[in-house]
Protein backbone atom coordinates (compact mmCIF):
# COMPACT_ATOMS: atom_id res chain seq x y z
CA UNK A 1 0.00 0.00 0.00
CA UNK A 2 2.91 2.35 0.77
CA UNK A 3 4.14 2.00 -2.81
CA UNK A 4 0.68 2.74 -4.22
CA UNK A 5 0.47 5.90 -2.10
CA UNK A 6 4.00 6.93 -3.16
CA UNK A 7 3.03 6.71 -6.83
CA UNK A 8 -0.33 8.41 -6.22
CA UNK A 9 1.31 11.30 -4.31
CA UNK A 10 3.66 12.04 -7.15
CA UNK A 11 0.88 11.78 -9.74
CA UNK A 12 -1.34 14.14 -7.76
CA UNK A 13 1.58 16.54 -7.40
CA UNK A 14 1.95 16.57 -11.16
CA UNK A 15 -1.79 16.98 -11.74
CA UNK A 16 -2.32 19.76 -9.22
CA UNK A 17 0.98 21.59 -9.10
CA UNK A 18 2.67 20.58 -12.32
CA UNK A 19 4.14 22.82 -14.99
CA UNK A 20 0.78 23.06 -16.70
CA UNK A 21 -0.70 24.01 -13.32
CA UNK A 22 -2.14 27.32 -14.44
CA UNK A 23 -3.68 25.78 -17.54
CA UNK A 24 -5.25 22.95 -15.56
CA UNK A 25 -6.40 25.37 -12.85
CA UNK A 26 -8.27 27.41 -15.47
CA UNK A 27 -9.83 24.19 -16.77
CA UNK A 28 -10.93 23.18 -13.29
CA UNK A 29 -12.30 26.65 -12.49
CA UNK A 30 -14.27 26.47 -15.72
CA UNK A 31 -15.73 23.12 -14.66
CA UNK A 32 -16.58 24.47 -11.21
CA UNK A 33 -18.26 27.54 -12.72
CA UNK A 34 -20.15 25.57 -15.39
CA UNK A 35 -21.40 22.70 -13.23
CA UNK A 36 -21.30 24.40 -9.85
CA UNK A 37 -22.72 27.84 -10.68
CA UNK A 38 -24.07 28.23 -14.21
CA UNK A 39 -26.17 25.05 -14.51
CA UNK A 40 -27.55 25.18 -10.94
CA UNK A 41 -28.67 28.79 -11.40
CA UNK A 42 -30.11 28.27 -14.87
CA UNK A 43 -31.97 25.05 -13.93
CA UNK A 44 -32.41 25.75 -10.24
CA UNK A 45 -35.64 23.82 -9.68
CA UNK A 46 -34.27 20.65 -11.26
CA UNK A 47 -31.14 21.02 -9.12
CA UNK A 48 -33.11 21.54 -5.96
CA UNK A 49 -35.12 18.39 -6.69
CA UNK A 50 -31.83 16.46 -6.55
CA UNK A 51 -32.35 14.72 -9.90
CA UNK A 52 -29.86 16.75 -11.96
CA UNK A 53 -27.03 16.83 -9.42
CA UNK A 54 -27.39 13.06 -8.99
CA UNK A 55 -26.82 12.53 -12.69
CA UNK A 56 -24.03 15.13 -12.80
CA UNK A 57 -21.98 13.63 -9.98
CA UNK A 58 -21.79 10.44 -12.02
CA UNK A 59 -20.94 12.29 -15.23
CA UNK A 60 -18.48 14.98 -14.10
CA UNK A 61 -15.74 12.50 -12.98
CA UNK A 62 -15.77 11.03 -16.48
CA UNK A 63 -14.81 14.42 -17.95
CA UNK A 64 -12.31 15.17 -15.18
CA UNK A 65 -10.56 11.80 -15.02
CA UNK A 66 -10.58 11.05 -18.75
CA UNK A 67 -7.75 13.36 -19.89
CA UNK A 68 -5.52 12.57 -16.92
CA UNK A 69 -5.94 8.81 -17.17
CA UNK A 70 -5.09 9.03 -20.87
CA UNK A 71 -1.87 10.77 -19.84
CA UNK A 72 -0.78 8.21 -17.23
CA UNK A 73 1.27 5.76 -19.29
CA UNK A 74 1.17 7.41 -22.73
CA UNK A 75 2.47 10.62 -21.11
CA UNK A 76 5.28 8.82 -19.30
CA UNK A 77 6.19 7.09 -22.55
CA UNK A 78 6.10 10.35 -24.53
CA UNK A 79 8.14 12.26 -21.94
CA UNK A 80 10.58 9.31 -21.75
CA UNK A 81 10.15 8.73 -18.03
CA UNK A 82 8.43 5.35 -18.27
CA UNK A 83 11.52 3.17 -18.57
CA UNK A 84 13.20 4.74 -15.55
CA UNK A 85 10.02 4.17 -13.54
CA UNK A 86 9.86 0.55 -14.69
CA UNK A 87 13.52 0.09 -13.72
CA UNK A 88 12.70 0.81 -10.06
CA UNK A 89 11.78 -1.77 -7.45
CA UNK A 90 8.09 -0.80 -7.60
CA UNK A 91 5.84 -3.82 -8.20
CA UNK A 92 3.71 -3.70 -11.37
CA UNK A 93 0.47 -3.49 -9.40
CA UNK A 94 1.67 -0.49 -7.36
CA UNK A 95 2.51 1.50 -10.46
CA UNK A 96 -0.83 0.65 -12.04
CA UNK A 97 -3.02 1.19 -8.98
CA UNK A 98 -1.10 4.28 -7.78
CA UNK A 99 -1.81 6.09 -11.00
CA UNK A 100 -5.49 5.16 -10.90
CA UNK A 101 -5.79 6.17 -7.25
CA UNK A 102 -4.37 9.63 -8.01
CA UNK A 103 -6.62 10.36 -10.96
CA UNK A 104 -9.77 9.08 -9.22
CA UNK A 105 -9.04 10.98 -6.02
CA UNK A 106 -8.52 14.16 -7.98
CA UNK A 107 -11.75 13.72 -10.01
CA UNK A 108 -13.67 12.85 -6.85
CA UNK A 109 -12.37 15.90 -4.95
CA UNK A 110 -13.20 18.33 -7.76
CA UNK A 111 -16.69 16.79 -8.03
CA UNK A 112 -17.26 17.45 -4.31
CA UNK A 113 -16.12 21.06 -4.79
CA UNK A 114 -18.56 21.44 -7.69
CA UNK A 115 -21.42 20.07 -5.61
CA UNK A 116 -20.59 22.38 -2.72
CA UNK A 117 -20.31 25.33 -5.12
CA UNK A 118 -23.77 24.53 -6.50
CA UNK A 119 -25.19 24.41 -2.99
CA UNK A 120 -23.63 27.78 -2.13
CA UNK A 121 -24.84 29.31 -5.41
CA UNK A 122 -28.40 28.06 -4.89
CA UNK A 123 -28.48 29.27 -1.28
CA UNK A 124 -26.93 32.67 -1.90
CA UNK A 125 -29.21 33.54 -4.80
CA UNK A 126 -32.30 31.72 -3.58
CA UNK A 127 -32.77 30.48 -7.13
CA UNK A 128 -35.58 27.94 -7.47
CA UNK A 129 -36.71 28.37 -3.88
CA UNK A 130 -40.38 29.13 -3.26
CA UNK A 131 -40.57 32.91 -2.94
CA UNK A 132 -37.12 33.28 -4.49
CA UNK A 133 -35.46 34.33 -1.24
CA UNK A 134 -31.84 33.54 -0.59
CA UNK A 135 -31.27 30.92 2.09
CA UNK A 136 -29.50 33.38 4.33
CA UNK A 137 -32.41 35.84 4.36
CA UNK A 138 -35.08 33.23 5.15
CA UNK A 139 -32.97 31.57 7.78
CA UNK A 140 -33.50 28.14 6.17
CA UNK A 141 -30.60 26.78 4.16
CA UNK A 142 -31.30 24.41 1.30
CA UNK A 143 -29.47 21.06 1.52
CA UNK A 144 -29.52 18.26 -1.07
CA UNK A 145 -31.31 15.03 -0.13
CA UNK A 146 -29.21 12.16 1.21
CA UNK A 147 -29.36 10.25 -2.10
CA UNK A 148 -27.39 13.08 -3.77
CA UNK A 149 -24.68 12.89 -1.10
CA UNK A 150 -24.39 9.12 -1.43
CA UNK A 151 -24.13 9.55 -5.19
CA UNK A 152 -21.53 12.30 -4.77
CA UNK A 153 -19.38 10.52 -2.20
CA UNK A 154 -19.50 6.95 -3.53
CA UNK A 155 -20.95 7.20 -7.03
CA UNK A 156 -18.51 9.82 -8.29
CA UNK A 157 -15.56 7.67 -7.18
CA UNK A 158 -17.08 4.58 -8.79
CA UNK A 159 -17.63 6.56 -11.96
CA UNK A 160 -14.01 7.82 -11.96
CA UNK A 161 -12.81 4.25 -11.40
CA UNK A 162 -14.87 3.10 -14.37
CA UNK A 163 -13.30 5.56 -16.82
CA UNK A 164 -9.88 4.98 -15.28
CA UNK A 165 -10.18 1.23 -15.66
CA UNK A 166 -11.02 1.62 -19.33
CA UNK A 167 -8.61 4.52 -19.85
CA UNK A 168 -5.49 2.77 -18.58
CA UNK A 169 -5.91 0.06 -21.22
CA UNK A 170 -5.91 2.79 -23.85
CA UNK A 171 -3.05 4.72 -22.28
CA UNK A 172 -0.89 1.61 -21.99
CA UNK A 173 -1.26 0.95 -25.70
CA UNK A 174 -0.86 4.53 -26.96
CA UNK A 175 2.49 5.86 -28.10
CA UNK A 176 1.57 9.52 -27.49
CA UNK A 177 -0.74 11.48 -25.22
CA UNK A 178 -2.54 12.84 -28.25
CA UNK A 179 -3.27 9.36 -29.54
CA UNK A 180 -4.50 8.36 -26.08
CA UNK A 181 -6.78 11.41 -25.85
CA UNK A 182 -8.24 10.66 -29.26
CA UNK A 183 -8.79 7.03 -28.36
CA UNK A 184 -10.44 8.06 -25.06
CA UNK A 185 -13.20 9.87 -26.95
CA UNK A 186 -14.89 6.59 -27.84
CA UNK A 187 -15.37 5.19 -24.31
CA UNK A 188 -16.36 8.66 -23.06
CA UNK A 189 -18.93 8.95 -25.82
CA UNK A 190 -20.23 5.44 -25.15
CA UNK A 191 -20.45 5.99 -21.39
CA UNK A 192 -22.06 9.42 -21.52
CA UNK A 193 -24.33 9.28 -24.54
CA UNK A 194 -24.54 5.54 -25.11
CA UNK A 195 -25.75 5.12 -21.54
CA UNK A 196 -28.70 7.44 -21.85
CA UNK A 197 -29.60 6.66 -25.48
CA UNK A 198 -28.94 2.97 -25.00
CA UNK A 199 -31.12 2.73 -21.91
CA UNK A 200 -33.84 4.71 -23.70
CA UNK A 201 -33.72 2.40 -26.70
CA UNK A 202 -33.73 -0.64 -24.43
CA UNK A 203 -36.75 0.71 -22.58
CA UNK A 204 -38.64 1.28 -25.82
CA UNK A 205 -37.75 -2.22 -27.00
CA UNK A 206 -39.35 -3.77 -23.92
CA UNK A 207 -42.90 -5.11 -24.20
CA UNK A 208 -45.47 -2.76 -22.61
CA UNK A 209 -46.37 -5.39 -20.03
CA UNK A 210 -42.75 -5.62 -18.88
CA UNK A 211 -42.52 -1.83 -18.81
CA UNK A 212 -45.61 -1.66 -16.59
CA UNK A 213 -44.18 -4.29 -14.22
CA UNK A 214 -40.88 -2.42 -13.97
CA UNK A 215 -42.62 0.89 -13.28
CA UNK A 216 -44.60 -0.78 -10.54
CA UNK A 217 -41.43 -2.26 -9.05
CA UNK A 218 -39.55 1.03 -9.34
CA UNK A 219 -42.33 2.95 -7.57
CA UNK A 220 -41.54 0.92 -4.48
CA UNK A 221 -37.81 1.75 -4.62
CA UNK A 222 -36.58 4.92 -2.94
CA UNK A 223 -34.04 7.25 -4.62
CA UNK A 224 -31.44 6.27 -2.04
CA UNK A 225 -31.97 2.55 -2.69
CA UNK A 226 -31.68 3.15 -6.43
CA UNK A 227 -28.41 5.07 -6.00
CA UNK A 228 -26.96 2.37 -3.75
CA UNK A 229 -27.92 -0.23 -6.37
CA UNK A 230 -26.31 1.72 -9.22
CA UNK A 231 -23.14 2.40 -7.21
CA UNK A 232 -22.87 -1.26 -6.21
CA UNK A 233 -23.23 -2.33 -9.83
CA UNK A 234 -20.59 0.21 -10.92
CA UNK A 235 -18.19 -0.96 -8.20
CA UNK A 236 -18.55 -4.54 -9.36
CA UNK A 237 -17.64 -3.51 -12.92
CA UNK A 238 -14.75 -1.41 -11.53
CA UNK A 239 -13.44 -4.34 -9.54
CA UNK A 240 -13.51 -6.54 -12.62
CA UNK A 241 -11.66 -3.90 -14.69
CA UNK A 242 -9.04 -3.32 -11.99
CA UNK A 243 -8.37 -7.04 -11.58
CA UNK A 244 -8.06 -7.40 -15.32
CA UNK A 245 -5.77 -4.37 -15.49
CA UNK A 246 -3.47 -5.59 -12.70
CA UNK A 247 -3.29 -9.02 -14.31
CA UNK A 248 -2.47 -7.64 -17.76
CA UNK A 249 0.00 -4.94 -16.68
CA UNK A 250 3.47 -6.33 -17.42
CA UNK A 251 6.72 -4.38 -17.62
CA UNK A 252 8.11 -6.49 -20.44
CA UNK A 253 5.08 -5.66 -22.60
CA UNK A 254 5.68 -1.92 -22.21
CA UNK A 255 9.22 -2.09 -23.57
CA UNK A 256 8.93 -3.50 -27.03
CA UNK A 257 12.36 -2.92 -28.56
Amino acid at each position, binding site marked *: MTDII*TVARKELREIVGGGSGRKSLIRELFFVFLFGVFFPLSQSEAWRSGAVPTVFVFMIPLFLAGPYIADTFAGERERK*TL*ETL*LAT*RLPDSSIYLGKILAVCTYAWAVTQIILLASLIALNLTGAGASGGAAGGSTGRWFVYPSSVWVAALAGSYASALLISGVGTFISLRSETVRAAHQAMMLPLFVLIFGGSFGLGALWRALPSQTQASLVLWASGVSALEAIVGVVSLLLLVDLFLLRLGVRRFRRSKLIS*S
Partner: protein
Amino acid sequence: MPVTSGGNGFAIQTRDLSRDFGSVRAVQDLTLDVPAGTIYGFLGPNGAGKTTTIRLLLGLLEPSGGEAWVLGHEVRTGSQEIREQAGVLLESDGLYTRLTALQNLDYFGRIARLSEPDRSRRIQDLLTAMDLWDRREGRVSDFSKGMRQKLALVRAFLSRPKLLFLDEPTSGLDTPSAVALRRQLVALARDEGVTVFLTTHNLLEAEKVCDRVAVIRKGALLAEGSPQEIHGGRSSRVAIDGERFSAELVGRVERLPMVESAVVEPATDGSPRILVDLKPGTDARAVVRLLVESGAEVASVETARESLEDIFLKLVEEEEADTGEESP
Protein backbone atom coordinates in the same frame (compact mmCIF):
# COMPACT_ATOMS: atom_id res chain seq x y z
CA MET B 1 30.24 -23.97 -16.77
CA PRO B 2 27.31 -23.13 -14.54
CA VAL B 3 27.11 -19.53 -13.48
CA THR B 4 26.97 -19.06 -9.74
CA SER B 5 25.78 -16.18 -7.58
CA GLY B 6 27.11 -12.67 -7.11
CA GLY B 7 29.03 -13.98 -4.09
CA ASN B 8 31.76 -15.24 -6.43
CA GLY B 9 33.15 -11.75 -6.96
CA PHE B 10 31.17 -10.94 -10.08
CA ALA B 11 28.35 -8.41 -10.12
CA ILE B 12 27.16 -9.55 -13.54
CA GLN B 13 27.65 -12.82 -15.37
CA THR B 14 26.08 -13.79 -18.67
CA ARG B 15 26.39 -16.96 -20.69
CA ASP B 16 25.33 -16.99 -24.35
CA LEU B 17 22.74 -14.31 -23.60
CA SER B 18 20.61 -13.53 -26.64
CA ARG B 19 17.61 -11.44 -27.50
CA ASP B 20 15.67 -11.42 -30.75
CA PHE B 21 13.16 -8.86 -31.99
CA GLY B 22 11.39 -10.72 -34.75
CA SER B 23 14.06 -11.72 -37.22
CA VAL B 24 16.60 -9.25 -35.80
CA ARG B 25 19.08 -10.59 -33.24
CA ALA B 26 19.82 -7.58 -31.02
CA VAL B 27 22.07 -9.44 -28.56
CA GLN B 28 23.99 -12.48 -29.73
CA ASP B 29 25.44 -15.18 -27.45
CA LEU B 30 26.89 -12.61 -25.10
CA THR B 31 29.20 -13.99 -22.41
CA LEU B 32 30.45 -11.49 -19.85
CA ASP B 33 31.96 -11.51 -16.36
CA VAL B 34 31.79 -8.12 -14.68
CA PRO B 35 33.88 -8.07 -11.47
CA ALA B 36 32.23 -6.44 -8.47
CA GLY B 37 33.51 -2.96 -7.58
CA THR B 38 34.77 -2.11 -11.05
CA ILE B 39 33.74 0.45 -13.63
CA TYR B 40 32.96 -1.72 -16.61
CA GLY B 41 32.72 -0.12 -20.04
CA PHE B 42 30.37 -1.62 -22.58
CA LEU B 43 31.42 -0.17 -25.90
CA GLY B 44 29.80 -0.22 -29.26
CA PRO B 45 28.42 1.98 -31.99
CA ASN B 46 24.77 3.06 -32.03
CA GLY B 47 22.50 0.06 -32.48
CA ALA B 48 25.13 -2.39 -31.23
CA GLY B 49 22.79 -3.83 -28.58
CA LYS B 50 24.06 -1.92 -25.53
CA THR B 51 20.67 -0.64 -24.35
CA THR B 52 19.00 -3.99 -25.01
CA THR B 53 21.67 -5.67 -22.86
CA ILE B 54 20.92 -3.28 -19.97
CA ARG B 55 17.19 -3.97 -20.34
CA LEU B 56 17.88 -7.70 -20.24
CA LEU B 57 20.08 -7.36 -17.17
CA LEU B 58 17.41 -5.31 -15.37
CA GLY B 59 14.75 -7.88 -16.21
CA LEU B 60 12.80 -5.37 -18.28
CA LEU B 61 13.08 -7.69 -21.28
CA GLU B 62 13.02 -11.48 -21.35
CA PRO B 63 16.06 -13.12 -22.93
CA SER B 64 15.41 -15.22 -26.03
CA GLY B 65 18.25 -17.51 -25.02
CA GLY B 66 21.14 -17.98 -22.63
CA GLU B 67 21.43 -17.03 -18.98
CA ALA B 68 22.30 -13.96 -16.94
CA TRP B 69 22.90 -13.40 -13.25
CA VAL B 70 22.97 -9.94 -11.73
CA LEU B 71 24.06 -9.59 -8.09
CA GLY B 72 23.40 -13.30 -7.72
CA HIS B 73 19.86 -13.19 -9.10
CA GLU B 74 18.83 -14.83 -12.33
CA VAL B 75 17.26 -12.20 -14.59
CA ARG B 76 14.18 -14.26 -15.45
CA THR B 77 13.21 -15.09 -11.87
CA GLY B 78 14.90 -12.43 -9.74
CA SER B 79 14.30 -9.20 -11.64
CA GLN B 80 12.50 -7.59 -8.70
CA GLU B 81 15.50 -8.25 -6.43
CA ILE B 82 17.87 -6.93 -9.10
CA ARG B 83 15.93 -3.68 -9.45
CA GLU B 84 15.88 -3.29 -5.66
CA GLN B 85 19.69 -3.21 -5.62
CA ALA B 86 20.43 -1.40 -8.86
CA GLY B 87 20.47 2.27 -9.82
CA VAL B 88 19.93 3.40 -13.38
CA LEU B 89 20.55 6.30 -15.69
CA LEU B 90 19.11 5.17 -18.97
CA GLU B 91 19.29 6.65 -22.47
CA SER B 92 16.82 9.33 -21.45
CA ASP B 93 17.33 10.98 -18.05
CA GLY B 94 13.81 9.96 -16.99
CA LEU B 95 13.25 13.07 -14.88
CA TYR B 96 9.81 14.57 -14.31
CA THR B 97 10.15 18.00 -15.85
CA ARG B 98 7.02 19.41 -14.18
CA LEU B 99 8.51 18.71 -10.77
CA THR B 100 11.43 20.35 -9.01
CA ALA B 101 14.79 18.65 -8.49
CA LEU B 102 13.89 18.01 -4.87
CA GLN B 103 10.47 16.59 -5.71
CA ASN B 104 12.02 14.23 -8.25
CA LEU B 105 14.56 12.95 -5.73
CA ASP B 106 12.00 12.74 -2.95
CA TYR B 107 9.83 10.52 -5.16
CA PHE B 108 12.65 8.12 -6.00
CA GLY B 109 13.85 8.19 -2.39
CA ARG B 110 10.39 7.11 -1.26
CA ILE B 111 10.32 4.39 -3.92
CA ALA B 112 13.66 3.17 -2.52
CA ARG B 113 12.05 3.21 0.94
CA LEU B 114 14.63 5.51 2.47
CA SER B 115 13.44 6.90 5.79
CA GLU B 116 12.58 10.61 5.92
CA PRO B 117 15.76 11.77 7.74
CA ASP B 118 18.00 9.48 5.69
CA ARG B 119 16.33 10.61 2.48
CA SER B 120 16.80 14.30 3.28
CA ARG B 121 20.42 13.85 4.33
CA ARG B 122 21.28 11.70 1.33
CA ILE B 123 19.65 14.13 -1.11
CA GLN B 124 21.54 17.06 0.42
CA ASP B 125 24.87 15.21 0.34
CA LEU B 126 24.52 14.09 -3.26
CA LEU B 127 23.16 17.39 -4.56
CA THR B 128 26.01 19.18 -2.82
CA ALA B 129 28.56 16.78 -4.34
CA MET B 130 27.10 17.50 -7.77
CA ASP B 131 26.93 21.29 -7.21
CA LEU B 132 23.14 21.27 -7.50
CA TRP B 133 22.07 22.02 -3.95
CA ASP B 134 21.35 25.68 -4.74
CA ARG B 135 19.07 24.61 -7.59
CA ARG B 136 17.08 22.07 -5.58
CA GLU B 137 13.84 24.08 -5.78
CA GLY B 138 14.23 24.71 -9.51
CA ARG B 139 11.85 23.00 -11.89
CA VAL B 140 13.64 20.39 -14.01
CA SER B 141 12.18 21.87 -17.21
CA ASP B 142 14.39 24.93 -16.55
CA PHE B 143 17.59 22.86 -16.20
CA SER B 144 20.29 22.61 -18.86
CA LYS B 145 21.12 19.21 -20.34
CA GLY B 146 24.23 18.99 -18.16
CA MET B 147 22.31 19.78 -14.98
CA ARG B 148 19.68 17.22 -15.86
CA GLN B 149 22.30 14.52 -16.37
CA LYS B 150 23.87 15.40 -13.02
CA LEU B 151 20.47 15.25 -11.33
CA ALA B 152 19.74 11.91 -12.97
CA LEU B 153 23.07 10.66 -11.70
CA VAL B 154 22.15 11.78 -8.18
CA ARG B 155 18.87 9.89 -8.53
CA ALA B 156 20.78 6.79 -9.65
CA PHE B 157 23.05 6.94 -6.58
CA LEU B 158 20.25 7.88 -4.17
CA SER B 159 19.23 4.39 -3.06
CA ARG B 160 22.87 3.35 -2.39
CA PRO B 161 22.79 0.76 -5.16
CA LYS B 162 25.28 -2.07 -5.34
CA LEU B 163 25.24 -1.83 -9.10
CA LEU B 164 24.75 1.14 -11.36
CA PHE B 165 23.67 0.93 -14.98
CA LEU B 166 24.64 4.05 -16.89
CA ASP B 167 23.56 4.22 -20.52
CA GLU B 168 25.56 6.87 -22.38
CA PRO B 169 25.67 9.27 -19.39
CA THR B 170 27.64 11.99 -21.17
CA SER B 171 25.83 11.73 -24.47
CA GLY B 172 24.76 15.13 -25.78
CA LEU B 173 26.89 17.09 -23.29
CA ASP B 174 29.50 19.65 -24.33
CA THR B 175 33.11 18.74 -23.51
CA PRO B 176 33.50 20.68 -20.22
CA SER B 177 30.20 19.32 -18.89
CA ALA B 178 31.09 15.78 -19.97
CA VAL B 179 34.52 16.02 -18.30
CA ALA B 180 32.98 17.38 -15.09
CA LEU B 181 30.25 14.73 -15.00
CA ARG B 182 32.77 11.96 -15.69
CA ARG B 183 35.00 13.19 -12.86
CA GLN B 184 32.08 13.37 -10.43
CA LEU B 185 30.82 9.97 -11.51
CA VAL B 186 34.17 8.30 -10.91
CA ALA B 187 34.59 10.02 -7.52
CA LEU B 188 31.12 8.96 -6.37
CA ALA B 189 31.51 5.41 -7.67
CA ARG B 190 34.86 5.00 -5.88
CA ASP B 191 33.55 6.58 -2.66
CA GLU B 192 30.49 4.37 -2.55
CA GLY B 193 32.23 1.20 -3.77
CA VAL B 194 29.58 0.61 -6.39
CA THR B 195 29.96 -1.51 -9.53
CA VAL B 196 29.27 0.57 -12.62
CA PHE B 197 28.13 -0.90 -15.93
CA LEU B 198 28.69 1.97 -18.33
CA THR B 199 27.63 1.84 -21.95
CA THR B 200 29.16 4.35 -24.28
CA HIS B 201 30.19 4.88 -27.85
CA ASN B 202 32.71 7.43 -26.60
CA LEU B 203 35.92 5.41 -26.54
CA LEU B 204 37.98 8.15 -25.00
CA GLU B 205 35.56 8.15 -22.08
CA ALA B 206 35.86 4.39 -21.68
CA GLU B 207 39.64 4.57 -21.76
CA LYS B 208 39.75 7.26 -19.09
CA VAL B 209 37.11 5.88 -16.75
CA CYS B 210 36.83 2.11 -17.06
CA ASP B 211 38.72 -0.67 -15.32
CA ARG B 212 37.58 -3.18 -17.92
CA VAL B 213 35.86 -2.86 -21.26
CA ALA B 214 33.88 -5.08 -23.58
CA VAL B 215 33.47 -4.14 -27.24
CA ILE B 216 30.31 -5.26 -29.00
CA ARG B 217 28.94 -4.82 -32.46
CA LYS B 218 25.61 -6.05 -33.79
CA GLY B 219 24.98 -7.70 -30.44
CA ALA B 220 28.11 -9.83 -30.50
CA LEU B 221 31.22 -9.50 -28.32
CA LEU B 222 34.36 -8.50 -30.26
CA ALA B 223 36.86 -8.09 -27.41
CA GLU B 224 36.95 -7.97 -23.61
CA GLY B 225 39.56 -7.02 -21.02
CA SER B 226 41.20 -4.06 -19.34
CA PRO B 227 42.06 -1.17 -21.68
CA GLN B 228 45.72 -2.15 -21.18
CA GLU B 229 45.03 -5.78 -22.08
CA ILE B 230 43.22 -4.70 -25.20
CA HIS B 231 46.15 -2.44 -26.08
CA GLY B 232 48.61 -5.22 -25.21
CA GLY B 233 46.98 -7.64 -27.55
CA ARG B 234 47.37 -5.29 -30.49
CA SER B 235 50.42 -4.27 -32.59
CA SER B 236 52.01 -0.90 -31.87
CA ARG B 237 53.34 1.56 -34.40
CA VAL B 238 56.76 3.24 -34.29
CA ALA B 239 57.67 6.30 -36.34
CA ILE B 240 61.45 6.64 -37.05
CA ASP B 241 62.67 9.95 -38.52
CA GLY B 242 66.09 10.28 -40.14
CA GLU B 243 68.04 10.05 -43.41
CA ARG B 244 69.26 7.45 -45.90
CA PHE B 245 66.30 5.01 -45.64
CA SER B 246 66.78 3.01 -48.84
CA ALA B 247 64.14 0.62 -50.18
CA GLU B 248 66.55 -2.26 -49.63
CA LEU B 249 67.02 -1.25 -45.96
CA VAL B 250 63.26 -0.99 -45.42
CA GLY B 251 62.93 -4.48 -46.90
CA ARG B 252 65.49 -5.80 -44.38
CA VAL B 253 63.58 -4.10 -41.53
CA GLU B 254 60.37 -5.75 -42.70
CA ARG B 255 62.04 -9.17 -42.53
CA LEU B 256 62.91 -8.76 -38.83
CA PRO B 257 60.88 -11.27 -36.71
CA MET B 258 59.20 -8.64 -34.50
CA VAL B 259 58.03 -6.49 -37.43
CA GLU B 260 54.62 -6.87 -39.01
CA SER B 261 55.10 -4.21 -41.69
CA ALA B 262 57.33 -1.24 -42.53
CA VAL B 263 56.76 1.60 -44.99
CA VAL B 264 58.59 4.82 -45.84
CA GLU B 265 56.40 7.86 -45.62
CA PRO B 266 57.50 11.51 -45.56
CA ALA B 267 56.92 13.30 -42.24
CA THR B 268 54.85 16.51 -42.20
CA ASP B 269 57.98 18.62 -42.80
CA GLY B 270 58.90 16.43 -45.81
CA SER B 271 61.83 14.62 -44.17
CA PRO B 272 62.02 10.79 -44.57
CA ARG B 273 60.19 8.65 -42.01
CA ILE B 274 59.74 4.89 -41.60
CA LEU B 275 56.50 3.68 -40.04
CA VAL B 276 57.01 0.26 -38.44
CA ASP B 277 54.15 -1.88 -37.08
CA LEU B 278 55.53 -4.12 -34.33
CA LYS B 279 54.04 -7.39 -33.17
CA PRO B 280 52.34 -7.39 -29.72
CA GLY B 281 54.76 -7.44 -26.78
CA THR B 282 57.87 -6.42 -28.79
CA ASP B 283 59.82 -3.15 -29.04
CA ALA B 284 61.78 -1.20 -31.65
CA ARG B 285 65.35 -1.62 -30.30
CA ALA B 286 66.40 -4.25 -32.89
CA VAL B 287 64.94 -2.11 -35.68
CA VAL B 288 66.92 0.97 -34.60
CA ARG B 289 70.10 -1.11 -34.23
CA LEU B 290 69.73 -2.49 -37.76
CA LEU B 291 69.16 0.98 -39.20
CA VAL B 292 72.20 2.47 -37.44
CA GLU B 293 74.46 -0.46 -38.31
CA SER B 294 73.39 -0.19 -41.95
CA GLY B 295 74.53 3.43 -42.13
CA ALA B 296 71.16 5.19 -41.83
CA GLU B 297 70.93 8.30 -39.69
CA VAL B 298 68.26 8.08 -36.97
CA ALA B 299 67.09 11.47 -35.68
CA SER B 300 64.14 10.38 -33.50
CA VAL B 301 62.08 7.34 -32.56
CA GLU B 302 58.46 7.84 -31.53
CA THR B 303 56.09 5.16 -30.35
CA ALA B 304 52.56 5.96 -31.46
CA ARG B 305 50.29 4.17 -28.98
CA GLU B 306 46.97 3.40 -30.60
CA SER B 307 43.97 4.88 -28.89
CA LEU B 308 41.09 2.65 -27.91
CA GLU B 309 39.23 4.34 -30.72
CA ASP B 310 41.79 3.11 -33.28
CA ILE B 311 41.59 -0.36 -31.80
CA PHE B 312 37.81 -0.29 -31.85
CA LEU B 313 37.78 0.69 -35.52
CA LYS B 314 40.29 -2.06 -36.32
CA LEU B 315 38.18 -4.62 -34.45
CA VAL B 316 35.14 -3.58 -36.42
CA GLU B 317 37.08 -3.74 -39.68
CA GLU B 318 38.44 -7.19 -38.81
CA GLU B 319 35.00 -8.43 -37.94
CA GLU B 320 33.61 -7.04 -41.19
CA ALA B 321 36.41 -8.73 -43.12
CA ASP B 322 35.61 -12.04 -41.38
CA THR B 323 31.91 -11.80 -42.16
CA GLY B 324 32.32 -10.18 -45.57
CA GLU B 325 30.25 -7.13 -44.55
CA GLU B 326 30.77 -3.43 -45.08
CA SER B 327 30.23 -0.60 -42.62
CA PRO B 328 26.95 1.28 -43.09
